[in-house]
């Protein structure tokens, strides 16, 4: 009896263990997301608090975005104010000191001779270091003085590997300089991998504020003056001086603003991660539902006995749900621990990449409570249906010996599935048709809703399809592996509901993988075809910091091998039709958008593309070229006048051409000269340089010469057309890899689901396994049968999932044609790879259940009750 009892305990562990694991994984994702957000939030809040210590700030009236990262990325709207305002402020008695915040992009060459960049994408920027700036504390050496000296923030000094006294190369304001590290200063907070270079104020102003305009001015109050009082006094002082367009904010207001900004960005990241956590939990729900469906079936007689001695259906129902609640709570608690482990590992990973984050891995009560509740709810909801079924089985029926033949009809489910899938398909088709009919406005959400409908419908239909689809998939096994194939086919089709819900877990992940792979391949193809047809320059020069230093542009232009240098410069401006600028209702026009300035003659020499109307050569005459999509949307046509407004100036110019360009992703294109009016610092914002070889120089020679000239700038890459295309493809691949990594968890859970179903069905089929072993089935044959079952389940889920994903993704190019998505590519190779992975997954999942089954002693199996 002891043996039986022990076996029961073990069987229970197996039954519930994998369900708990599924909850643990899903909840880990959830709690890890919360914890990561908390950690990032405290890191960035720390940066804000350390970086903005002034009591008041003076800045442009229109307001701008203020985060510490803004200084480094070119092209953002900065609200310049005169640096001289610092003196106005400092003249007040209530002001202790005030200084202009001078900042800008910089490149430091580290000890190893390469540019210091953050793998996590954190910026590298320079700050003017004033002696009385309280945000910085000198820890070693002395403050820099003059253009050939600089200091570094502590963590930056560490990541560059430089010591005080070392001389290295800087790229400051587009020029290469040799400078000596004179000191190291601490900002008192983790900087999340940002590289901070400190320059003396004169040098910084010369480079970053040559026109005397800075982003903001920091004002520190004298003792006893509150921030609000200070702001009032400053406003009076500014008014007295007659300075307009300058806004005064308290330090608190600015810090709150910056924090809100960070929180909303982190909120987006959090939501994004939680979507994937939700997918994992949804998938985990299938495992729990399956487990309870199977254990309930095995315990049917036990329930019948309970019912026979007077237990009500509700009591039976409750007893099962209690078990589910335990699974959920245990899984949730372990999941919290798992999430913390996950974040600890991530933190270590980030730190090894040079991105230091603040403090310990945080645990909040809210996170623990949410995790436990999530685990509990997922588990109880998943178990509710099987529990209800068990509770409603009449005792007499349950008492009956073997009752596997009582498969409930799938008709209701089939009809429901058809309706949902049909509605979903209808929505998708409607979206595609409307998009094809040029009515793209509301098709995105429609497509999304349709896609969800199709996926849910297919999940409902899965058991109905199972028998037919599995029959086809199993055919090669039945023919090739006798009798294993036939036995395996019988096992996976005997309970289509179970097989389908096991496969569904994989289906969801695979549908997303299929859709993502089609979208990625199509995006790559769309981009590369537009680049190949539109970018006709011989070489493309780009920068790791997204700004090509002006010095590099000049030097490259002077090379004898270079025939023509065309620069693509990015600026920002609000675009309105001339005369409507005052129209307050034109809400859409108030959002600034990116605009591009091109060297005269770029079209035809470095870029080409279909001109819908007008003539692109009119760019040289100070006219604008507008993209056809935005032209249609806003009703712009050749001859219309547009007004472009930025913080620095306003330009009104007629539209000279309507073009269809995917390479230049901005609504308005103009000449470089025109852009200078609204972006005085345009020369510092060259994003891309397009080069054409001089007559008689071949591209290889040109590339060698340009690469040589670009080398000292360390951040530049010189690409020919093929390299440019493959670089863009690689960027898409990076996104795809992140997506795959996030989906990987749901796939892992799906694998657990297959293991779970197989392990439970081995327990359920012990008698049958014993019988087959008694009539001569070898252990290997038995293991092979279970493996084939597993592979069939995995392949079923994968085939249906990929099919749904690919079909849905195929509808997208039509819907999103507007945004340059013009080619549909189905990556057959990649899909075949996924199928291969499914087979591998199947084999992997079968490993443990197969070994377990093969080890069952024949006699015990035959005689088991």
């Amino acid at each position: 009896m002891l043996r039986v009892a022990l076996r029961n305990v073990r069987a229970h562990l197996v039954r519930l263990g994998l369900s708990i694991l599924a909850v643990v994984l899903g909840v880990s994702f959830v709690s890890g997301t919360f914890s990561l957000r908390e950690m990032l939030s405290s890191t960035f809040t720390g940066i804000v608090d350390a970086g903005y210590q002034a009591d008041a700030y003076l800045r442009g009236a229109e307001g701008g975005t203020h985060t510490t990262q803004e200084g480094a990325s070119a092209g953002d709207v900065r609200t310049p104010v005169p640096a001289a305002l610092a003196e106005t402020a400092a003249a007040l008695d209530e002001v202790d000191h005030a200084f202009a915040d001078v900042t800008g992009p910089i490149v430091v060459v580290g000890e190893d001779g390469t540019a210091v960049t953050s793998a996590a994408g954190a910026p590298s920027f320079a700050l003017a270091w004033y002696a009385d700036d309280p945000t910085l504390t000198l820890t070693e050496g002395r403050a820099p003085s003059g253009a050939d000296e600089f200091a570094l923030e502590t963590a930056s000094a560490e990541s560059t590997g430089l010591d005080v006294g070392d001389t290295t190369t800087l790229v400051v304001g587009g020029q290469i300089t040799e400078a000596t590290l004179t000191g190291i200063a601490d900002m008192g907070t983790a900087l999340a991998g940002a590289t901070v270079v400190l320059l003396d104020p004169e040098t910084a102003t010369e480079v970053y504020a040559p026109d005397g305009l800075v982003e903001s001015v920091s004002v520190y109050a004298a003792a006893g003056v509150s921030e609000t009082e200070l702001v009032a006094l400053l406003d009076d002082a500014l008014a007295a001086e007659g300075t307009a367009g300058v806004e005064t904010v308290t330090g608190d207001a600015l810090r709150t603003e910056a924090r809100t900004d960070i929180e909303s960005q982190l909120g987006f990241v959090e939501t994004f991660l939680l979507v994937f956590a939700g997918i994992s939990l949804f998938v985990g729900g299938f495992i729990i539902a399956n487990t309870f469906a199977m254990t309930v079936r095995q315990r049917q007689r036990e329930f019948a006995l309970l019912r026979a001695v007077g237990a009500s259906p509700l009591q039976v129902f409750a007893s099962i749900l209690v078990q589910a609640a335990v699974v959920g709570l245990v899984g949730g608690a372990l999941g919290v621990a798992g999430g913390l482990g996950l974040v600890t590992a991530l933190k270590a990973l980030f730190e090894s990449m040079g991105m230091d984050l603040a403090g310990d891995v945080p645990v909040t009560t809210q996170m623990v409570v949410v995790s436990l509740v999530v685990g509990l709810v997922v588990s109880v909801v998943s178990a509710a249906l099987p529990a209800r079924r068990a509770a409603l089985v009449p005792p007499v029926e349950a008492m009956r010996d073997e009752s596997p033949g009582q498969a409930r009809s799938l008709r209701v489910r089939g009809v429901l599935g058809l309706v949902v899938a049909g509605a979903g398909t209808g929505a998708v088709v409607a979206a595609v048709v409307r998009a094809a009919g040029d009515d793209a406005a509301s098709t995105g959400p429609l497509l999304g809703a349709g896609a969800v409908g199709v996926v849910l419908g297919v999940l409902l239909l899965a058991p109905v399809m199972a028998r037919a689809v599995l029959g086809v998939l199993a055919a090669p096994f039945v023919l090739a592996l006798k009798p294993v194939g036939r036995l395996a086919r019988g096992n996976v089709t005997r309970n289509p509901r179970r097989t389908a819900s096991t496969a569904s877990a994989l289906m969801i992940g695979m549908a997303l993988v299929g859709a993502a792979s089609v979208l990625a391949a199509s995006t790559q193809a769309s981009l590369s075809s537009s680049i190949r047809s539109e970018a006709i320059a011989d070489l493309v020069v780009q920068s790791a910091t997204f700004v090509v230093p002006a010095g590099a542009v000049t030097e490259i232009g002077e090379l004898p091998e270079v025939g023509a240098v065309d620069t693509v410069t990015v600026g920002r401006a609000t675009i309105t039709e001339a005369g409507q600028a005052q129209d307050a209702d034109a809400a859409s026009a108030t959002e600034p958008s990116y605009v591009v300035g091109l060297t005269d003659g770029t079209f035809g020499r470095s870029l080409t593309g279909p001109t819908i109307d007008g003539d692109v050569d009119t760019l040289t005459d100070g006219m604008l070229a507008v993209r056809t999509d935005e032209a249609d949307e806003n009703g712009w046509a050749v001859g219309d006048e547009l007004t472009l407004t930025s913080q620095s100036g306003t330009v009104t110019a007629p539209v000279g051409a309507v073009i269809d360009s995917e390479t230049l992703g901005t609504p308005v294109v103009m000449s470089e000269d025109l852009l200078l009016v609204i972006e005085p610092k345009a020369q510092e914002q060259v994003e891309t340089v397009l080069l054409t070889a001089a007559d008689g120089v071949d591209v290889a020679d040109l590339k060698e010469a340009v690469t040589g000239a670009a080398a000292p700038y360390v951040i530049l890459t010189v690409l020919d057309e093929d390299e440019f295309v493959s670089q863009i493809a690689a960027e898409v691949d990076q996104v795809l890899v992140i997506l795959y990594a996030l989906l990987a968890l749901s796939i892992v859970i799906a694998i657990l689901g297959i293991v779970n179903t197989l392990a439970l069905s081995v327990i359920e089929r012990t008698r049958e396994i014993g019988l087959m072993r008694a009539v001569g089935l070898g252990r290997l044959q038995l293991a092979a049968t279970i493996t084939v079952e597993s592979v069939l389940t995995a392949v079923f889920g994968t085939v249906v999932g990929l099919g749904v994903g690919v079909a849905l993704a195929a509808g997208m190019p039509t819907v999103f044609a507007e945004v340059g998505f013009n080619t549909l590519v189905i990556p057959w190779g990649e899909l075949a790879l996924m199928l291969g992975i499914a087979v591998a997954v199947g084999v992997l999942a079968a490993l443990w259940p197969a070994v377990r089954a093969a080890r069952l002693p024949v006699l015990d199996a035959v005689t088991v009750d």
Partner: protein
Amino acid sequence: MTPVSTAPSEQAGTAPGTTTSAIASARGLEKTYGKGGTAVRALAGVDVDFARGEFTAIMGPSGSGKSTLMHCMAGLDTPTAGTVVVDGLTVSSMSQRQLTKLRRTQLGFIFQAFNLVPTLTAAENITLPLDIARKPVDQAHLAAVVKAVGLADRLGHRPSELSGGQQQRVACARALVSRPSVVFADEPTGNLDSTSSREVLSFLRTSVDELGQSVVMVTHDPVAASHAHRVLFLADGEIVAEVTQPTPDSVLEVLSSLSRQAL
């Protein structure tokens, strides 16, 4: 305990249960479950021979060791001591792999219940041992067996669509189709009504008489045992009696005398 024999043994001078031309035999067969004080001796040194081409029934009260004897003979259980030889092969010293092969090629099994794989049709269940062994199906033999069990019109049905008697007849056909050396039947009629029982038993007897099959059957039903050529009686792990050409009455008589002895 003294062996009781109510019918003269055909092989005078030998111990009950042993014959000369055996298809399966055991010598000094012992089986002990558990260890130390709680050890249970299921077989206490059994010497037994099952004759080729004979239908042998094994009877005895619960716990007499009759099932253990059959399991050890069939290689489903490993004896604690002693040897088992089936058709010249020493089963008791075989590895798991050899045992699997033995079951596949030399032995046929019929269990009391749960005899068929529910996902396979009757025909597929019958040929399962051949499929497992990847041996070609001798269609003429298959047809003969199917005809003998009277299932020709039921071959495409799944076990859940067959009555208990039909299921056991399918199991009989499966046990015979690979022409095993011995068929071991463990209470094959235990779950059947009397009509179905008679069908199954007379089929087993026919297979012995007409096809020359050797059959060993464990049963507790005197009527079932009376279909055999010979009945062996076990008690406390030893063979205590033997009846040849049994009738229900002669079997009952031995059983009652055995239980009197036990008292």
